Protein backbone atom coordinates (compact mmCIF):
# COMPACT_ATOMS: atom_id res chain seq x y z
CA UNK A 1 0.00 0.00 0.00
CA UNK A 2 1.47 3.36 -1.11
CA UNK A 3 0.38 5.52 1.83
CA UNK A 4 2.16 8.56 0.42
CA UNK A 5 0.14 8.36 -2.81
CA UNK A 6 -3.01 7.71 -0.77
CA UNK A 7 -2.40 10.81 1.41
CA UNK A 8 -1.64 12.91 -1.67
CA UNK A 9 -4.90 11.81 -3.29
CA UNK A 10 -6.86 12.67 -0.15
CA UNK A 11 -5.15 16.09 0.03
CA UNK A 12 -5.84 16.73 -3.66
CA UNK A 13 -9.48 15.66 -3.26
CA UNK A 14 -10.04 17.77 -0.14
CA UNK A 15 -8.41 20.87 -1.62
CA UNK A 16 -10.31 20.49 -4.89
CA UNK A 17 -13.61 20.30 -2.97
CA UNK A 18 -12.65 23.19 -0.70
CA UNK A 19 -11.68 25.51 -3.57
CA UNK A 20 -14.16 24.41 -6.22
CA UNK A 21 -17.43 24.10 -4.29
CA UNK A 22 -17.74 27.78 -3.22
CA UNK A 23 -17.10 28.83 -6.83
CA UNK A 24 -19.53 26.21 -8.10
CA UNK A 25 -22.19 27.50 -5.67
CA UNK A 26 -21.85 31.05 -6.97
CA UNK A 27 -21.59 30.05 -10.64
CA UNK A 28 -24.25 27.33 -10.39
CA UNK A 29 -26.67 29.72 -8.72
CA UNK A 30 -25.97 32.42 -11.33
CA UNK A 31 -26.55 29.95 -14.18
CA UNK A 32 -29.69 28.59 -12.50
CA UNK A 33 -31.39 32.00 -12.45
CA UNK A 34 -29.86 33.30 -15.69
CA UNK A 35 -32.14 34.06 -18.62
CA UNK A 36 -29.21 35.12 -20.81
CA UNK A 37 -29.11 33.97 -24.42
CA UNK A 38 -25.51 32.90 -23.87
CA UNK A 39 -26.54 30.39 -21.17
CA UNK A 40 -26.48 27.26 -23.41
CA UNK A 41 -22.96 28.15 -24.60
CA UNK A 42 -21.71 28.56 -21.02
CA UNK A 43 -23.41 25.30 -20.00
CA UNK A 44 -21.74 23.51 -22.91
CA UNK A 45 -18.37 24.90 -21.82
CA UNK A 46 -19.00 23.71 -18.26
CA UNK A 47 -19.78 20.20 -19.51
CA UNK A 48 -16.80 20.02 -21.86
CA UNK A 49 -14.35 18.35 -19.40
CA UNK A 50 -16.91 15.55 -18.98
CA UNK A 51 -16.93 14.55 -22.66
CA UNK A 52 -13.36 15.38 -23.69
CA UNK A 53 -10.96 12.41 -23.58
CA UNK A 54 -8.73 12.92 -20.50
CA UNK A 55 -5.61 12.78 -22.68
CA UNK A 56 -6.92 15.60 -24.89
CA UNK A 57 -7.75 17.70 -21.86
CA UNK A 58 -4.41 16.81 -20.29
CA UNK A 59 -2.61 17.81 -23.47
CA UNK A 60 -4.27 21.23 -23.57
CA UNK A 61 -3.61 21.81 -19.88
CA UNK A 62 0.01 20.78 -20.36
CA UNK A 63 0.34 23.21 -23.27
CA UNK A 64 -1.55 25.92 -21.38
CA UNK A 65 0.40 25.56 -18.12
CA UNK A 66 3.83 24.81 -19.61
CA UNK A 67 6.89 27.01 -19.21
CA UNK A 68 6.33 28.33 -22.75
CA UNK A 69 2.78 29.51 -22.05
CA UNK A 70 1.69 32.87 -20.68
CA UNK A 71 -0.14 31.26 -17.72
CA UNK A 72 2.87 29.07 -16.92
CA UNK A 73 5.32 32.00 -17.04
CA UNK A 74 3.02 34.25 -15.00
CA UNK A 75 2.52 31.56 -12.33
CA UNK A 76 6.25 30.90 -12.13
CA UNK A 77 7.00 34.63 -11.88
CA UNK A 78 4.57 35.05 -8.97
CA UNK A 79 5.02 31.78 -7.06
CA UNK A 80 8.51 30.75 -8.14
CA UNK A 81 7.39 27.27 -9.17
CA UNK A 82 6.21 25.63 -12.36
CA UNK A 83 2.66 24.45 -12.93
CA UNK A 84 3.55 21.24 -14.74
CA UNK A 85 4.73 18.19 -12.79
CA UNK A 86 3.98 19.93 -9.48
CA UNK A 87 1.19 19.51 -6.93
CA UNK A 88 -0.02 23.08 -7.63
CA UNK A 89 -0.39 22.29 -11.33
CA UNK A 90 -2.16 19.05 -10.47
CA UNK A 91 -4.56 20.95 -8.23
CA UNK A 92 -5.31 23.49 -10.97
CA UNK A 93 -5.91 20.67 -13.46
CA UNK A 94 -8.12 18.91 -10.91
CA UNK A 95 -10.18 22.08 -10.44
CA UNK A 96 -10.76 22.38 -14.19
CA UNK A 97 -11.50 18.67 -14.75
CA UNK A 98 -14.02 18.63 -11.89
CA UNK A 99 -16.03 21.69 -12.95
CA UNK A 100 -18.94 19.64 -14.41
CA UNK A 101 -18.99 17.23 -11.45
CA UNK A 102 -19.33 20.12 -9.01
CA UNK A 103 -21.45 22.48 -11.11
CA UNK A 104 -24.10 20.16 -12.54
CA UNK A 105 -25.77 18.94 -9.34
CA UNK A 106 -25.44 22.36 -7.71
CA UNK A 107 -26.97 24.21 -10.67
CA UNK A 108 -29.86 21.70 -10.83
CA UNK A 109 -30.42 22.09 -7.08
CA UNK A 110 -30.65 25.89 -7.38
CA UNK A 111 -32.99 25.52 -10.36
CA UNK A 112 -35.22 23.30 -8.22
CA UNK A 113 -35.56 26.08 -5.61
CA UNK A 114 -37.69 27.93 -8.18
CA UNK A 115 -38.31 31.62 -8.78
CA UNK A 116 -41.32 31.88 -6.45
CA UNK A 117 -39.32 31.09 -3.30
CA UNK A 118 -36.68 33.64 -4.34
CA UNK A 119 -39.41 36.20 -4.87
CA UNK A 120 -41.03 35.27 -1.56
CA UNK A 121 -37.67 35.77 0.12
CA UNK A 122 -37.26 39.19 -1.52
CA UNK A 123 -40.77 40.18 -0.44
CA UNK A 124 -39.73 39.24 3.12
CA UNK A 125 -37.07 41.95 2.78
CA UNK A 126 -34.15 39.59 2.24
CA UNK A 127 -31.22 40.81 0.17
CA UNK A 128 -29.08 38.61 -2.10
CA UNK A 129 -26.75 37.23 0.60
CA UNK A 130 -29.43 36.66 3.20
CA UNK A 131 -31.67 34.97 0.66
CA UNK A 132 -28.80 32.72 -0.41
CA UNK A 133 -27.85 31.90 3.17
CA UNK A 134 -31.30 31.50 4.73
CA UNK A 135 -33.42 30.11 1.88
CA UNK A 136 -31.47 28.86 -1.13
CA UNK A 137 -28.46 27.14 0.46
CA UNK A 138 -30.51 25.01 2.89
CA UNK A 139 -32.80 23.94 0.03
CA UNK A 140 -29.95 23.34 -2.43
CA UNK A 141 -27.90 21.49 0.20
CA UNK A 142 -28.55 17.96 -1.19
CA UNK A 143 -27.25 19.11 -4.59
CA UNK A 144 -24.22 20.74 -2.98
CA UNK A 145 -23.48 17.55 -1.04
CA UNK A 146 -23.75 15.53 -4.24
CA UNK A 147 -21.40 17.97 -5.99
CA UNK A 148 -18.90 17.63 -3.13
CA UNK A 149 -19.06 13.82 -3.16
CA UNK A 150 -18.76 13.52 -6.94
CA UNK A 151 -15.85 15.97 -7.03
CA UNK A 152 -14.02 14.18 -4.22
CA UNK A 153 -14.60 10.66 -5.58
CA UNK A 154 -13.75 11.72 -9.12
CA UNK A 155 -10.52 13.40 -7.97
CA UNK A 156 -9.45 10.19 -6.20
CA UNK A 157 -10.06 8.21 -9.38
CA UNK A 158 -8.80 10.69 -12.01
CA UNK A 159 -6.02 9.13 -14.05
CA UNK A 160 -5.46 10.47 -17.59
CA UNK A 161 -5.24 14.17 -16.83
CA UNK A 162 -3.15 13.56 -13.70
CA UNK A 163 -0.66 11.47 -15.67
CA UNK A 164 -0.41 14.06 -18.45
CA UNK A 165 -0.05 17.14 -16.22
CA UNK A 166 1.62 15.69 -13.16
CA UNK A 167 3.44 12.57 -14.24
CA UNK A 168 4.26 10.23 -11.36
CA UNK A 169 6.57 12.04 -8.94
CA UNK A 170 6.38 10.40 -5.48
CA UNK A 171 5.07 12.80 -2.84
CA UNK A 172 4.39 15.50 -5.44
CA UNK A 173 2.10 14.20 -8.18
CA UNK A 174 1.79 10.44 -7.74
CA UNK A 175 -1.85 9.91 -6.73
CA UNK A 176 -3.28 6.57 -5.69
CA UNK A 177 -4.68 5.82 -9.16
CA UNK A 178 -1.25 6.47 -10.70
CA UNK A 179 0.30 4.27 -8.00
CA UNK A 180 -2.12 1.45 -8.89
CA UNK A 181 -1.12 1.79 -12.56
CA UNK A 182 2.60 1.73 -11.61
CA UNK A 183 2.10 -1.41 -9.50
CA UNK A 184 0.21 -3.17 -12.32
CA UNK A 185 3.03 -2.26 -14.73
CA UNK A 186 5.48 -3.79 -12.23
CA UNK A 187 3.34 -7.00 -12.02
CA UNK A 188 2.75 -6.29 -8.31
CA UNK A 189 -0.89 -7.35 -8.39
CA UNK A 190 -1.17 -7.73 -4.61
CA UNK A 191 -0.29 -4.06 -3.93
CA UNK A 192 -2.44 -2.89 -6.86
CA UNK A 193 -5.37 -4.96 -5.58
CA UNK A 194 -4.99 -3.59 -2.06
CA UNK A 195 -4.99 0.02 -3.26
CA UNK A 196 -7.86 -0.60 -5.69
CA UNK A 197 -9.92 -2.07 -2.84
CA UNK A 198 -9.22 0.97 -0.62
CA UNK A 199 -10.24 3.30 -3.47
CA UNK A 200 -13.38 1.26 -4.07
CA UNK A 201 -14.39 1.36 -0.40
CA UNK A 202 -13.75 5.12 -0.07
CA UNK A 203 -15.63 5.94 -3.27
CA UNK A 204 -18.57 3.73 -2.28
CA UNK A 205 -18.64 5.14 1.25
CA UNK A 206 -18.57 8.73 -0.05
CA UNK A 207 -21.46 8.18 -2.45
CA UNK A 208 -23.47 6.12 0.09
CA UNK A 209 -23.03 8.79 2.76
CA UNK A 210 -24.15 11.44 0.29
CA UNK A 211 -27.29 9.49 -0.64
CA UNK A 212 -28.06 8.91 3.03
CA UNK A 213 -27.67 12.59 3.92
CA UNK A 214 -29.58 13.92 0.90
CA UNK A 215 -32.43 11.52 1.63
CA UNK A 216 -32.54 12.69 5.23
CA UNK A 217 -32.60 16.34 4.19
CA UNK A 218 -35.28 15.55 1.57
CA UNK A 219 -37.47 13.89 4.23
CA UNK A 220 -37.03 16.86 6.57
CA UNK A 221 -38.18 19.29 3.87
CA UNK A 222 -41.22 17.13 3.09
Amino acid at each position, binding site marked *: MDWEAFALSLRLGALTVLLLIPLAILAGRALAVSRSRGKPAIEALVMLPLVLPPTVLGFYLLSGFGAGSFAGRAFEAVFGTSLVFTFEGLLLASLIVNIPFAMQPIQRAFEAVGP*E*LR*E*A*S*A*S*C*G*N*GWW*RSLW*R*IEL*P*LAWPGILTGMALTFAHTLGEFGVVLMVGGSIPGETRTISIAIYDRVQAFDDAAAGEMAAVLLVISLATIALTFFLTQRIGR*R*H*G
Partner: protein
Amino acid sequence: MDKGLSIRVAQAAPFPLEAAFDVAPGEVMALVGPSGSGKTTVLRSIAGFHKPQQGRIVCNGVTWLDSAAHVSLAPRERRAGFVFQSYALFPHMTALENVMEALSDRPRGDREEAARSLLARVHLGTHGERRPAELSGGEQQRVAVARALARRPDVLLMDEPFSAVDRMTRRKLRQELEELRRELPMPVVLVTHDLDDVRRLADRLCVMHKGRILQSGKTAEVLANPADQTIADLLDIG
Protein backbone atom coordinates in the same frame (compact mmCIF):
# COMPACT_ATOMS: atom_id res chain seq x y z
CA MET B 1 -52.32 60.06 -3.88
CA ASP B 2 -50.03 60.58 -0.85
CA LYS B 3 -51.32 57.57 1.06
CA GLY B 4 -52.36 54.40 -0.67
CA LEU B 5 -51.21 53.01 -3.98
CA SER B 6 -51.05 54.65 -7.36
CA ILE B 7 -49.97 52.62 -10.37
CA ARG B 8 -49.54 53.38 -14.05
CA VAL B 9 -47.73 50.76 -16.13
CA ALA B 10 -47.36 50.22 -19.87
CA GLN B 11 -45.35 48.01 -22.16
CA ALA B 12 -45.52 46.83 -25.75
CA ALA B 13 -43.41 43.67 -25.41
CA PRO B 14 -43.06 40.79 -24.59
CA PHE B 15 -46.84 41.17 -24.30
CA PRO B 16 -48.89 44.37 -24.37
CA LEU B 17 -49.88 45.80 -21.02
CA GLU B 18 -51.51 49.07 -20.07
CA ALA B 19 -52.99 49.56 -16.63
CA ALA B 20 -53.59 52.48 -14.33
CA PHE B 21 -55.50 52.67 -11.06
CA ASP B 22 -55.35 53.99 -7.52
CA VAL B 23 -56.19 52.13 -4.33
CA ALA B 24 -56.89 53.98 -1.09
CA PRO B 25 -55.67 52.77 2.32
CA GLY B 26 -57.99 50.07 3.66
CA GLU B 27 -59.58 49.58 0.26
CA VAL B 28 -59.61 46.24 -1.59
CA MET B 29 -59.18 46.43 -5.36
CA ALA B 30 -59.87 43.23 -7.32
CA LEU B 31 -58.23 42.61 -10.68
CA VAL B 32 -60.50 40.31 -12.62
CA GLY B 33 -60.00 38.72 -16.00
CA PRO B 34 -59.28 35.51 -17.85
CA SER B 35 -55.89 33.78 -17.79
CA GLY B 36 -53.31 35.80 -19.70
CA SER B 37 -55.18 39.08 -19.23
CA GLY B 38 -52.20 40.64 -17.44
CA LYS B 39 -53.62 40.84 -13.92
CA THR B 40 -50.81 38.84 -12.28
CA THR B 41 -48.23 40.87 -14.25
CA VAL B 42 -49.71 44.06 -12.79
CA LEU B 43 -49.42 42.55 -9.31
CA ARG B 44 -45.83 41.46 -9.98
CA SER B 45 -45.01 44.93 -11.31
CA ILE B 46 -46.17 46.46 -8.02
CA ALA B 47 -44.00 44.01 -6.03
CA GLY B 48 -41.02 44.67 -8.32
CA PHE B 49 -40.79 41.13 -9.70
CA HIS B 50 -41.66 42.40 -13.18
CA LYS B 51 -40.25 45.57 -14.66
CA PRO B 52 -42.60 47.14 -17.21
CA GLN B 53 -41.06 49.27 -19.96
CA GLN B 54 -42.83 52.39 -18.72
CA GLY B 55 -44.55 53.22 -15.53
CA ARG B 56 -44.87 54.99 -12.26
CA ILE B 57 -45.78 53.30 -9.01
CA VAL B 58 -46.11 55.32 -5.83
CA CYS B 59 -47.04 53.70 -2.55
CA ASN B 60 -47.61 55.49 0.72
CA GLY B 61 -45.81 58.55 -0.66
CA VAL B 62 -42.71 56.61 -1.75
CA THR B 63 -41.91 56.25 -5.46
CA TRP B 64 -41.23 52.56 -6.12
CA LEU B 65 -40.99 52.90 -9.89
CA ASP B 66 -40.59 55.89 -12.16
CA SER B 67 -39.27 54.81 -15.53
CA ALA B 68 -38.94 58.43 -16.72
CA ALA B 69 -36.66 59.25 -13.77
CA HIS B 70 -34.91 55.83 -13.91
CA VAL B 71 -36.13 54.99 -10.42
CA SER B 72 -36.84 51.34 -9.66
CA LEU B 73 -36.65 50.03 -6.11
CA ALA B 74 -35.65 46.39 -5.68
CA PRO B 75 -38.46 44.08 -4.47
CA ARG B 76 -36.95 43.90 -0.98
CA GLU B 77 -36.99 47.70 -0.73
CA ARG B 78 -40.70 47.91 -1.54
CA ARG B 79 -42.86 47.29 1.48
CA ALA B 80 -45.22 44.94 -0.34
CA GLY B 81 -46.70 41.88 1.34
CA PHE B 82 -47.23 39.21 -1.30
CA VAL B 83 -49.46 36.15 -0.98
CA PHE B 84 -48.44 33.85 -3.82
CA GLN B 85 -50.88 31.60 -5.64
CA SER B 86 -48.91 28.53 -4.49
CA TYR B 87 -48.15 30.29 -1.14
CA ALA B 88 -44.36 29.86 -1.70
CA LEU B 89 -43.72 28.95 1.93
CA PHE B 90 -40.13 28.07 2.76
CA PRO B 91 -40.36 24.25 3.07
CA HIS B 92 -37.37 23.87 5.42
CA MET B 93 -38.82 26.25 7.99
CA THR B 94 -41.70 25.88 10.41
CA ALA B 95 -44.78 28.09 10.11
CA LEU B 96 -43.37 30.27 12.87
CA GLU B 97 -39.97 30.56 11.18
CA ASN B 98 -41.68 31.42 7.88
CA VAL B 99 -43.38 34.39 9.52
CA MET B 100 -40.23 35.35 11.48
CA GLU B 101 -38.31 35.47 8.19
CA ALA B 102 -40.27 38.57 7.26
CA LEU B 103 -39.53 40.18 10.63
CA SER B 104 -35.77 40.52 10.22
CA ASP B 105 -35.97 44.31 10.51
CA ARG B 106 -37.22 43.99 14.09
CA PRO B 107 -35.05 43.36 17.17
CA ARG B 108 -34.19 39.66 17.43
CA GLY B 109 -35.89 39.29 20.82
CA ASP B 110 -39.23 40.60 19.54
CA ARG B 111 -39.53 38.45 16.45
CA GLU B 112 -40.94 35.25 17.92
CA GLU B 113 -43.64 36.98 19.92
CA ALA B 114 -44.63 39.09 16.90
CA ALA B 115 -44.75 35.98 14.68
CA ARG B 116 -46.85 34.04 17.22
CA SER B 117 -49.25 36.95 17.46
CA LEU B 118 -49.61 37.07 13.66
CA LEU B 119 -50.23 33.31 13.50
CA ALA B 120 -52.87 33.66 16.22
CA ARG B 121 -54.48 36.42 14.16
CA VAL B 122 -54.97 33.97 11.29
CA HIS B 123 -56.20 31.24 13.70
CA LEU B 124 -53.01 29.19 13.56
CA GLY B 125 -51.73 29.82 17.05
CA THR B 126 -51.15 26.12 17.77
CA HIS B 127 -49.51 25.20 14.48
CA GLY B 128 -46.37 27.31 14.72
CA GLU B 129 -43.95 24.40 15.03
CA ARG B 130 -45.21 22.56 11.94
CA ARG B 131 -43.48 22.65 8.59
CA PRO B 132 -45.51 23.53 5.46
CA ALA B 133 -45.64 19.85 4.39
CA GLU B 134 -47.43 19.08 7.67
CA LEU B 135 -50.10 21.75 7.09
CA SER B 136 -53.30 21.54 5.00
CA GLY B 137 -53.76 23.85 2.00
CA GLY B 138 -55.93 26.20 4.02
CA GLU B 139 -53.42 26.34 6.85
CA GLN B 140 -50.61 27.05 4.40
CA GLN B 141 -52.63 29.92 2.96
CA ARG B 142 -53.05 31.38 6.46
CA VAL B 143 -49.29 31.17 7.09
CA ALA B 144 -48.73 32.93 3.75
CA VAL B 145 -51.11 35.73 4.80
CA ALA B 146 -49.41 36.04 8.22
CA ARG B 147 -45.99 36.21 6.55
CA ALA B 148 -47.19 38.82 4.06
CA LEU B 149 -48.50 40.97 6.91
CA ALA B 150 -45.40 40.52 9.08
CA ARG B 151 -43.39 43.25 7.39
CA ARG B 152 -46.16 45.76 8.11
CA PRO B 153 -46.46 46.28 4.36
CA ASP B 154 -47.65 49.48 2.68
CA VAL B 155 -49.67 47.34 0.28
CA LEU B 156 -50.96 43.75 0.45
CA LEU B 157 -50.89 41.87 -2.85
CA MET B 158 -52.79 38.59 -3.19
CA ASP B 159 -52.50 36.41 -6.28
CA GLU B 160 -55.45 34.00 -6.51
CA PRO B 161 -55.16 33.26 -2.79
CA PHE B 162 -57.96 30.70 -2.73
CA SER B 163 -57.27 28.80 -5.94
CA ALA B 164 -55.36 25.91 -4.37
CA VAL B 165 -58.02 24.86 -1.84
CA ASP B 166 -61.34 23.03 -2.01
CA ARG B 167 -64.71 24.83 -2.02
CA MET B 168 -65.39 24.39 1.70
CA THR B 169 -61.99 25.67 2.72
CA ARG B 170 -62.27 28.47 0.19
CA ARG B 171 -65.51 29.67 1.78
CA LYS B 172 -63.98 29.55 5.26
CA LEU B 173 -60.80 31.35 4.23
CA ARG B 174 -62.77 34.01 2.39
CA GLN B 175 -64.85 34.60 5.49
CA GLU B 176 -61.71 34.94 7.60
CA LEU B 177 -60.15 37.32 5.10
CA GLU B 178 -63.37 39.34 5.08
CA GLU B 179 -63.00 39.79 8.85
CA LEU B 180 -59.28 40.46 8.64
CA ARG B 181 -59.54 43.06 5.89
CA ARG B 182 -61.61 45.37 8.11
CA GLU B 183 -58.56 45.67 10.36
CA LEU B 184 -56.06 46.17 7.55
CA PRO B 185 -54.93 49.77 7.18
CA MET B 186 -53.14 49.34 3.86
CA PRO B 187 -54.46 49.09 0.30
CA VAL B 188 -55.08 45.52 -0.86
CA VAL B 189 -54.87 44.34 -4.48
CA LEU B 190 -56.50 40.98 -5.07
CA VAL B 191 -56.11 39.00 -8.28
CA THR B 192 -58.93 36.54 -8.82
CA HIS B 193 -61.15 35.05 -11.46
CA ASP B 194 -63.86 34.16 -8.97
CA LEU B 195 -66.78 36.58 -8.81
CA ASP B 196 -67.76 35.38 -5.32
CA ASP B 197 -64.35 36.57 -4.08
CA VAL B 198 -64.98 39.92 -5.76
CA ARG B 199 -68.48 40.36 -4.35
CA ARG B 200 -67.46 39.44 -0.79
CA LEU B 201 -64.08 41.12 -0.57
CA ALA B 202 -63.58 43.90 -3.11
CA ASP B 203 -64.62 47.53 -2.75
CA ARG B 204 -63.68 48.19 -6.35
CA LEU B 205 -62.74 46.11 -9.33
CA CYS B 206 -60.83 46.38 -12.59
CA VAL B 207 -61.84 44.11 -15.45
CA MET B 208 -58.75 43.23 -17.47
CA HIS B 209 -58.52 41.65 -20.90
CA LYS B 210 -55.51 41.26 -23.21
CA GLY B 211 -53.36 43.48 -21.02
CA ARG B 212 -55.82 46.37 -20.79
CA ILE B 213 -58.33 47.56 -18.22
CA LEU B 214 -61.71 47.48 -19.93
CA GLN B 215 -63.73 48.83 -17.02
CA SER B 216 -63.13 49.81 -13.44
CA GLY B 217 -65.29 51.14 -10.66
CA LYS B 218 -67.15 50.23 -7.50
CA THR B 219 -67.82 46.51 -7.39
CA ALA B 220 -71.59 46.71 -7.21
CA GLU B 221 -71.77 49.29 -10.02
CA VAL B 222 -69.54 47.36 -12.43
CA LEU B 223 -71.33 44.11 -11.75
CA ALA B 224 -74.71 45.78 -12.22
CA ASN B 225 -73.74 47.79 -15.30
CA PRO B 226 -71.03 46.18 -17.39
CA ALA B 227 -69.99 48.70 -20.05
CA ASP B 228 -70.41 46.28 -22.94
CA GLN B 229 -71.13 42.68 -23.84
CA THR B 230 -67.42 41.67 -23.75
CA ILE B 231 -67.18 42.77 -20.13
CA ALA B 232 -70.47 41.07 -19.28
CA ASP B 233 -69.12 37.86 -20.87
CA LEU B 234 -65.82 38.16 -19.00
CA LEU B 235 -67.71 38.61 -15.72
CA ASP B 236 -70.08 35.81 -16.68
CA ILE B 237 -73.10 37.99 -15.99
CA GLY B 238 -74.27 38.22 -19.60
